[in-house]
């Protein structure tokens, strides 16, 4: 049986039929806030229950509680603030009223502004990322926010946002039905922002050995420069899954959610989100959601100790490498051989090889995956 949604109820703030038409009409008569892509897809994720139990952007009580405690004000675990910033005069004017939310000029949701409060971006960065260092990409994203004030309140979406990978877009209520239809009682979720290498395959298959199925759920959307582009990730996974995974063992779907690189806190956030999709287990690898040495390799594992009430079981899987003596991909817990036998699976080396137009060694990446990546060599990275 799929994991119950976080907070006990899958949020549904998507209007259909006559209600959607009515809201679309109302949206023409109220002020409009134009959102960034990241903010707009946050709205869609709220509306479709990805962020259950959130029904809207955080109000001040919840925001303060999330920063200080890593929990909502009702005590539920919640580690990443989902917030909407606006200019101060606008916030004052809109408090207590409905606004339309638009992306690229298209109104797609209504929000009731219940709360407006000043935020300290540096404080938020320090609490969420553990640093306010401007070289951290998540900190940069926060510091680039223009609004001095955060507005909180429920949203209701009446138009679906576009998804270039529509064929792979599944919402939580859909994955839940899917798992039920497949007869899966235990589901391990795999979060990724990369094209798959041998280490990823190893940890996914390790998890798959003792659960009914895998939810492979790459993030698409905003990422830092140098990361793989969405098209590269999706195409590379197609190559891997078609060649090396039993068809009935996985569900592959994309999630349009920004990567924040918040390390430990984001690892917990990733788990909560996948719980909403119905996953019972969450694969947490080395330096999960980390970036460039800001976090210790296994800090994310420790973060889970704070949350006995998370409702999804973390699967802590160590870094994988190739051992020439073992003759395969292993990890330090199961391989007795010393460093001279070990080939580290380096994302940096893989990228360099691809940029040179070379297939990375088969100890690091499946040739089928490498070939499709090389075929899109000019469009590989953000």
């Amino acid at each position, binding site marked *: 049986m799929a994991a*119950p949604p976080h907070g*006990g109820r*899958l949020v*549904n703030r998507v209007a259909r039929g006559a209600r959607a038409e009515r809201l679309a009409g109302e949206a023409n008569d109220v002020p409009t806030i134009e959102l960034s892509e990241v903010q707009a897809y946050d709205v869609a994720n709220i509306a479709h*229950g990805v962020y259950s139990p959130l029904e809207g952007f955080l109000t001040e009580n919840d925001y303060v509680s999330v920063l200080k405690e890593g929990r909502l004000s009702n005590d539920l675990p919640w580690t990443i603030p989902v917030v909407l910033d606006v200019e101060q005069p606008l916030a004052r004017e809109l408090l207590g009223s409905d606004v339309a939310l638009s992306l690229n000029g298209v109104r797609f949701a209504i929000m009731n502004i219940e709360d407006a409060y000043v935020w300290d971006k540096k404080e938020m960065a320090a609490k969420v990322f553990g640093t306010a260092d401007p070289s951290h990409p998540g900190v940069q994203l926060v510091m680039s926010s223009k609004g001095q004030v955060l507005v909180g309140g429920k949203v209701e979406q009446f138009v679906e946002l576009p998804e270039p990978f529509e*064929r792979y877009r599944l919402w939580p209520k859909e994955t839940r039905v899917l798992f039920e239809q497949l007869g899966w009682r235990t589901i391990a979720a795999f979060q990724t922002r990369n094209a798959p290498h041998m280490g990823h395959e190893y940890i996914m298959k390790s998890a798959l050995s003792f659960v009914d199925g895998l939810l492979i759920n790459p993030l698409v959307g905003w990422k830092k420069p140098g990361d793989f582009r969405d098209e590269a990730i999706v195409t590379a996974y197609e190559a891997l899954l078609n060649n090396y995974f039993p068809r009935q063992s996985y569900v592959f779907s994309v999630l349009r959610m920004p990567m924040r690189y918040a390390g430990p806190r984001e690892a917990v956030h990733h788990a909560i989100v996948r719980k909403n999709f119905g996953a019972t287990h969450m694969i947490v690898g080395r330096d999960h959601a980390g970036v460039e040495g800001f976090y210790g390799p296994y800090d994310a594992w420790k973060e889970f100790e704070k949350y006995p009430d998370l409702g999804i079981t973390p699967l802590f899987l160590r870094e994988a490498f190739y051992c020439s003596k073992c003759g395969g991909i292993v990890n330090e817990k199961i391989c007795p051989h010393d460093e001279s036998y070990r080939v580290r699976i380096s994302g940096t080396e893989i990228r360099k090889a691809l940029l040179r137009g070379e297939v990375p060694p088969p100890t690091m990446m499946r040739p089928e995956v490498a070939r499709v990546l090389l075929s899109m060599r000019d469009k590989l990275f953000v």
Partner: protein
Amino acid sequence: MEGVERERRNRYTTVSIPVPLYERIKSLIAGTGFTSVSQFVTYVLRDIVSEMEKQKVQDAVSEEERKEIVEKLRRLGYL
């Protein structure tokens, strides 16, 4: 200081437990990561309460919607 105390009062409340139990917990958590009996009790209660809350889960999908979803999943090749 007054502000900190007020905030604490707003965020925490007192629950009574038998003194012998308090002492048992105190000795049990010595040398562990728990820094107080309150912290331990909060941890244990969160664990238990979340398990109990699982019983109260509401199904968000109607039968009609389930049929539509199954149809979509078939169309996309998931089923």
